[in-house]
């Protein structure tokens, strides 16, 4: 709500479901009710996004006014008497759900978001029966867009416009919009074109805010239903912003990445790398042990440890097979203690031979602030050089 800047915000007192509620002037009925722990169901509302009052699910009765008001848009007024569970409000919610179902596929059983769908939850709560067949239903092509990360199924779209607002208000890209009107209204990218032609940077914010299965993560299709995954919170390793995210893990494998609404840095927002760049985790080329060239290892150790299997000869980076003869350049997969000893020893040798200014240190944006701080200490105090820089300067 617009409030005049510079005017001190006052509190107003109102009654919700017979309970006295105090809320700041200018807040909405929904905000006031939620602050008092009173639940009002919503569908098009999201606390991160502007309110449009379109889905009509949050309607409530306000004494002294005719008709219902949408709690997400109506500002509180002192002395308001609000009933969030009036017969009219509940009947209207039920009617809206019934209408949505008359143009929604009956596909929960094979839907990616089964169990994680706001429409499904409300239909269940309000016991809305599946409507009798008959009448026009949309039959859009499923996944018509070549975007590698985002699947579109307009048949499931309820036109809540959360994706439109997320894209415009969070990502500032304005990719999504609604075309046509009435029953023909549909979600389109740009001027009804492919996402990537419409300035989409595949951040997936639209997917994150979709309350149903109309937008979904393409890489997770068939793999990441909510009841099959364990959510492991972590910090994104791509850059120093420190976005929190949940790795959705199934059978030891990351199958999807989701934002964390409570995350102080990023909330539900992630970028294309954080959200979709997780396929390296299980990539066969990923390094899982330190590699040291054979020449840097003592021959005695090498033979013994290769023999007992602690170390392995690797093919990287050459094309040779492990059976071929070990040359000085052959990479040996060793252990961390050995590898660090080799590095430390060489650093000490070089410093002694050429002095501290022989070193230049280059830090990574993928490190946390703490790690970069330590890296600075390492350069200046251990190595003794001021020549340290960071990839973010590129």
């Amino acid at each position, binding site marked *: 709500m*617009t409030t005049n800047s510079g005017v001190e915000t006052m509190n107003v007192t109102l009654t919700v479901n017979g309970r006295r509620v105090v809320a700041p002037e200018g807040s909405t009925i929904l905000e006031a009710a939620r602050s008092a722990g009173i639940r009002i169901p919503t569908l098009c509302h999201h606390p991160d996004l502007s309110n449009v009052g379109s889905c009509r699910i949050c309607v409530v009765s306000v004494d002294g006014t005719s008709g219902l008001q949408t709690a997400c848009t109506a500002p509180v007024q002192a002395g308001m008497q609000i009933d969030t569970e009036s017969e009219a409000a509940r009947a209207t919610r039920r009617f809206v759900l019934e209408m949505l179902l008359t143009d929604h596929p009956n596909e929960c059983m094979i839907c990616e978001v089964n169990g994680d769908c706001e429409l499904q939850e409300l239909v269940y709560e309000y016991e809305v029966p599946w409507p009798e067949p008959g009448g026009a239903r949309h039959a859009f092509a499923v996944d018509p867009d070549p975007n590698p990360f985002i699947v579109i199924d307009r048949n499931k779209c309820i036109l809540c416009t959360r994706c439109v607002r997320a894209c415009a208000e969070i990502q500032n890209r304005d990719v999504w919009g609604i075309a046509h009107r009435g029953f023909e209204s549909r979600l389109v990218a740009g001027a009804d074109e492919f996402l990537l032609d419409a300035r989409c940077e595949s951040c997936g914010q639209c997917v994150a805010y979709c309350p149903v299965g109309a937008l979904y993560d393409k890489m997770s299709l068939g793999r990441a239903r909510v009841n099959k995954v364990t959510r492991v919170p972590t910090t994104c390793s791509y850059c120093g912003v420190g976005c929190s995210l949940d790795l959705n893990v199934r059978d030891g494998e990351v199958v999807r990445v989701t934002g964390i609404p409570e995350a102080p840095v990023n909330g539900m927002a992630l970028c294309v790398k954080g959200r979709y760049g997780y396929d390296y985790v299980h990539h066969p080329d990923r390094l899982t042990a330190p590699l040291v060239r054979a020449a840097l290892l003592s021959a005695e150790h090498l033979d013994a440890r290769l023999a007992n299997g602690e170390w392995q000869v690797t093919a990287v980076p050459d094309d040779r097979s492990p059976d071929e003869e070990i040359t000085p350049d052959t990479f040996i997969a060793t252990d961390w203690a050995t590898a660090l000893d080799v590095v430390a020893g060489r650093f000490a040798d070089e410093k002694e031979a050429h002095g501290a200014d022989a070193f230049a240190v280059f830090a990574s944006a993928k490190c946390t602030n703490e790690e970069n701080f330590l890296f600075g200490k390492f350069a200046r105090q251990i190595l003794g050089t001021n020549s340290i820089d960071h990839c973010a300067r590129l």
Partner: protein
Amino acid sequence: MGTCGIAAGAEATRDAVDRELEQRSLAGEAGRVGCMGMCSFEPILELHAAGSPYMVYGRATAEAVPGIFAAYLEGTSLQQGVVVGEGRPVFTRSNGSALESLSLVDPETGDPIPFHRKQVRVVLSNCGLIDPESVDDYLAVGGYEALETVLAMDAEQVVDTVIRSGLRGRGGGGFPTGRKWQLARSTERWPKYVICNADEGDPGAFMDRSVLEGDPHAVIEGMAIAGYAIGAAVGYVYCRAEYPLAIRRLEGALAAARELRLLGRDILGSGFDFDIQVKAGAGAFVCGEETALMASIHGERGQPWPRPPYPAVAGLWDQPSNVNNVKSYAFVPRIVRQGAAWFRSLGTEGSPGTAVFALSGMVNRTGLIEVPMGITLHDVVFDIGGGIPGGKQFKAVQTGGPLGGCLPAANLDTPVDFDSLTAAGSVMGSGGMIVADETTCMVEFATYFLRFACDESCGKCPPCRIGSLRMLEILERITAGRGRPDDLDRIRHLAGGMQQGSLCGLGQLTPSPVLSVLRHFEDELWAHITEGRCPAAACQKLVRSPCVSACPAGVDVPAYLALVAQGRRSEALAVHREANPFAMICGRVCPAFCEDVCRRGQIDEPIAIRHVKRFMADHEFAEPWTPPRLAPSKDVRVAVVGAGPCGLTTALRLAQQGYRVTVFERMPEPGGMMTYGIPSYRLPRAPLFAEIDHIRRAGVEIRCGMQLGTDFTIKSLREDGYAAIVLALGAHRSRSLNIDGEDKDGVYHGVQMLRDVASDQLPDLSGKRVVVVGGGDTAMDAARSARRLGAEEVRVVYRRTRDELPAIREEIEGAVEEGVVFDFLVTPVAVLGDGSVNAVRLQRQSLGNFDSSGRRRPVPIAGSEFDLPCDVLVPAIGQITWLDDDSLRARQAGTIDIGKAFELGDVPGVFAAGDAVSGPATVVQSVAQGNQVAITVRHWLETGELGGVYYRPVRHDIAQLYDPQDYAESRRPEPGMLSVEERLAGRDFSEVERVLDAAAIEEECKRCLRCDLEWLQRIGEPMP
């Protein structure tokens, strides 16, 4: 010259006037004014020569102009064009020529022309009077004086003036304009905006366009005043792009006003800054909703946003804004100039001022009118609009555009104002008024508006986006004959959800037209759903032909006409009997609803369907029909009480299905009112009893002289093993007049007279003066019988006028031919005489308000009583049923109360139908009921379920074996009639009407346009 005048050729007319002036070497000038609102007369030409009257001519096309000049200047008679009226000079135009008032008078009588008589033009007063492209013209009529006045006032006073005037928003919502201004004024945030809503999207409505095209400065002045009042410096006119002329004239007016410092900085040196810009809408109806309108000005998708906050608090660009309709602003300068009290003196207490309507549809004088609030719908439709074209019946008027509602004839007395229309179930709206006549199907009517609203739904909220389509799907199903019994409940459910759940007025009001049809025309909906019949014969998919639709029994008229045309009379008769077993009877006495709607009748005369029927049936007289048995015999007995047309049809249909049916009849002969109510000069006994014999031949046992309650009871029938009992008792008891002296000798009820005649107990009325009371068929039959029985003078007294007489036309004409005299607008109040009647005291009536049947109610004129001498008084004002069994309940009106499937609620297996239930009806209506009762009873006997089955007659596709072009010139034949002398000689009741010969009949059948074939071609699928 508004858009519509120009479309009708006004530009060419003006060129023709210029040519004519040149040719005649006249020093004249062809001017241009806005629309006068007389659509039916466009293009319109006003002529004035010095010293001559101001004359206004209609249909003044370019070709008509020379003739009009000749008529005006030389007094020749008009060949093309018409005189609309004569104007009166009022004041002088800026260019020197005198202006005339637009209240035109009839040049002959000097009275205002009917179109203007009841109009009061305030907001339209300049339209058609001044040149809308001349600011000087506007100044000459007092323009911008109000702005000048206002600028010297305190802004609060301006708001107060508007509040005191009681002006309510003319966009349709009716919110008090002054209060709206006050809210915007009291919000302390700047800038503020004044917005004029000119997104007039209702189909057929053009009030706002006419004001913008005809008097744009009035709107500008009103907006400037509003800006001053609320503290705004910027105004927007949001005008639909489909109004290019309005936008052009508005832009021109804005430029002219700026030039005169009436807009811009420091207006008239007052320090007040205000300017206006025009925003052209992109064609979305929803942008007439104020929040969607503002979103559109923002450059966003034109979709509404929820309120509160209201625009007065957070509107355009999230700032305080005031949105009013074009007309609301245009009223303001007049209110300022003439005072709030003057405005209040017009209209009603709750809705002061005038209302502008675009009157269209089935009305003689379509046009743009302005009337004081509180005028009745009747005055608008009939006095201003001139009634319904083609002598058709008024059916309904839709107000409030596609989101409004329709009102039936019974509501014609409703005052036109915000609150009265809402109370009646419609709304005032912005000013659309569409008149529907009897040929309009109200279901289709509502479907049209619903389709519009559905197309225009913005799609933002689900109740409107999806709900309107779901409702449309149901209505389209109904108009295609695939309606379901629960559809009306479904519609109500959708309507409730949309009204309560939709975001804006569009979705909330979309169900209104449908709900108003549900409220006022539910029967018509049911006819579509249960019978697959469109009573108005309008729904394309249902109307195989108008005649079939109009026939209560659904007889396949085109099929039997086609068969008779080919000489296949037996087959034709079989087709008829499938739906109606009484072809000979109906061939004589049917009111022939089919002929009323026959399309051939729109060209010359309707097909003589009844005569064809009579011919084809009479021709088979010698070959008695045995109705076919359609199912194996069953050992199930059904009793039908009453051997009238409904009871006999029920009995026949059940017998054809194999049931063992017994009919119990009170009178000595079967036939009910066909025998005892219709005199033999209309229905001779031979064909009547022949057709009853057909029913006996189907296996039906008819037991006469059996009185319910005396000779048998419901209980005894049950004990005798009847599984189902159908009461088709008829309505034989004459309604009492309920006046003093009704028990005197000489009071002889019409029903009794006809019964006596039918029983060969002819009373002697020779030399008697007979007064018949009533106007229905019984009254006509009694009057005509009285003449045959020797009465010297027969008068019919009727409380309404000839136009309202309910009797069929042939009967009225017959009565008049036979010397019956009619006294209209009188009703008896006492029967006079000592012991026996010697006079009846009558009271004169006038016609007052409309009743639920759409007829005007007679209202007694006090002190108008007079005595009419008479020897015999014959009451014939209707019949009620005759009940004598404890297990039956009777309603006060004298009809039996039944459930949805004819069942008598608490008595399983007992059904009631016919006149006893519906009140007196025609034979064909009784037959229709009999068909339906039979299928209902059969369904109950077979399944134990009540209702849910509907009689739908079979349709036949008969080829057309002749070229209809050959019969384009043929005319309807009329059968010969007995002369009046022959009819009245010797107490003779022989048949009046003769039968046509075969050649005439076959020729007549080929006049049929075969609408059914057109239907087959169009629909390409069998009947649902």
